[in-house]
């Protein structure tokens, strides 16, 4: 039962979705929409598990004093502060004691983590008291400060300007820079891998060189290089893509069928 029931579920829902594809009727469409909604809702619970996992791994790192474990504090503080921004809102013009509240909460988290990490009983007690004090402080501030509120009433969500600012000035620059690292890595990968070791590597190298030179005005026959690389991107590329797409399509179809029929069980660790 414990082992077999999930595979029965896979089979039932898999077959249902296949049949649904051929039935345009309203009932089948409603069922389809429901199932997709369900996946999203289950995803929310999974996200909670995910955040828990991130939290646990970070605290474990601190506890085990692994290499670079101090940085886990930064992860946890970032996690909490951003979450706080996502669930609170300024009510008036000024921020009031909002940032003091944020600081108190951060201090509380740090104290809790350090408490977990410390071995000495006396130190443990000291950090516990610290955590308690900051927690009480944070609660007091949250109760008595009217400049901001927890907003479980505003459907718009991200009204908090701090949330926006963190997104624009912390997340976006890091994202864009991570992306820009590709410029360097594409260069080093090309240097490392484009060696004419054999026929295949030479073809790879020549095609890349040709396309990379397509707008180099200093090259002889520059005009033809541009045209040839255009053709390369248009014609052989199309052929190769189609061959790969058909292969991938059949691979997906074959794997999906094996999963539905219960032939493939590796995804449940039963291989």
């Amino acid at each position, binding site marked *: 039962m414990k082992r077999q029931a999930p595979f029965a579920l896979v089979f039932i829902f898999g077959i249902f979705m296949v049949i649904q594809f051929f039935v345009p009727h309203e009932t089948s469409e409603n069922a389809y929409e429901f199932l997709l909604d369900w996946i999203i809702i289950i995803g929310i619970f999974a996200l909670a598990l995910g955040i828990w996992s991130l939290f646990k791994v970070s605290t474990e790192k601190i506890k085990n004093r692994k290499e670079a474990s101090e940085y886990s504090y930064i992860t946890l503080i970032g996690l909490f502060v951003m979450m706080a921004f996502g669930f609170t809102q300024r009510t008036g013009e000024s921020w009031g004691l909002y940032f003091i509240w944020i600081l108190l909460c951060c201090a509380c988290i740090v104290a809790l983590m350090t408490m977990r990490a410390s071995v000495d009983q006396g130190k443990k007690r000291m950090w516990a008291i610290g955590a308690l004090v900051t927690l009480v402080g944070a609660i007091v501030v949250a109760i008595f400060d009217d400049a901001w509120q927890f907003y479980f009433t505003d459907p718009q969500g991200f009204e908090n300007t701090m949330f926006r600012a963190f997104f624009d000035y912390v997340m976006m620059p890091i994202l864009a820079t991570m992306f820009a690292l590709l*410029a*360097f890595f*594409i*260069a*080093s990968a*090309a*240097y*490392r891998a*484009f*060696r*004419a*070791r054999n026929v295949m590597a030479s073809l790879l*190298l020549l095609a*890349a*060189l040709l396309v*990379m*030179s397509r*707008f*180099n*005005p*200093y090259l002889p026959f*520059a*005009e033809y290089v*541009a045209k040839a690389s*255009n053709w390369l*991107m*248009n014609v052989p590329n199309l052929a190769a893509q189609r061959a790969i797409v058909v292969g991938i399509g059949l691979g997906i179809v074959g794997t999906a069928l094996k999963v539905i029929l219960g032939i493939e069980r590796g995804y449940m660790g039963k291989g």
Partner: protein
Amino acid sequence: MQAFEKLMMLDRRWIFLLLIVVCVFTYVFDFSIPILTEPETEAIYNFVDSLPPGDIVFIAIDYDPNNMAELHPMTYAVVEHCWRKELKIIFTSLSQNGPGMVDQALRDLSDSLAQDRTYNGVEFKGREIVRGVDYTFLGYKPYYAIVILGMGQNFRLPFSNDYYGTPLDSIPMMQGVFNYDQCAGVIDLSGGNITDAWISYGQGRFGFPLFLGLTGVMTAQYYPYLGSGQVKGIMGGLLGAAQYEELADNPGRAKDGMRIQLSAHLVIILFIVMGNIGFFASKRRLSKEGGA
């Protein structure tokens, strides 16, 4: 011989360093590189260049901020060229965030047109660009295919007023201008499907000369239309924009971008070549040693 092996095993940080130095250098210090022009872009340039003053060109700015890097330089180059030639322009923007692009370009270009400039040896006096005389901006309307068709009958059908709320009938340059027939041609600068609508609904039904400015990734798939004659000219990506700037003798952002692109590409090619020299040299040495 040791040197060749070093060429092969170079620490990648040297590549990073050279790449960033070259990029920053070419970014900060202005110098010009020759741009090789292609007939597809020349067709657009020649079309604009051959028109007599007072003719009307229709320019569709159908791109969003995310395609700005490639398409905005085209707008700047083409519009500046048109206005220097004292042509009149009708703008539309059939992409939702397009009007912002047009606004920005109009502001910058009006400033630029106010100055005296020399292009291709011809001196142009600075002049004031007047809305309603030098250009009309019709604005944005959803359902681009229907808008394109409607404009083929009469611009007043989809746009009774221009973007700023002025009725088209009271705009000086729109007197006697009803549809594409009164325009010398249409230039569509687009980063998406709107191009297809311009080809099939616009050019296909009304037969005006159509020119395209496209993003780099789109370009290849529109070449067949050049062969069939439905499209008279194509500018592809930053490269196409740079070619137009080169032809118009008006170096701008696209040529700046191409300068950086070219030098970065040269750095990468240089390293590839170095790696291969090292590879072949050490292979030869190995085979010699093996032979001996």
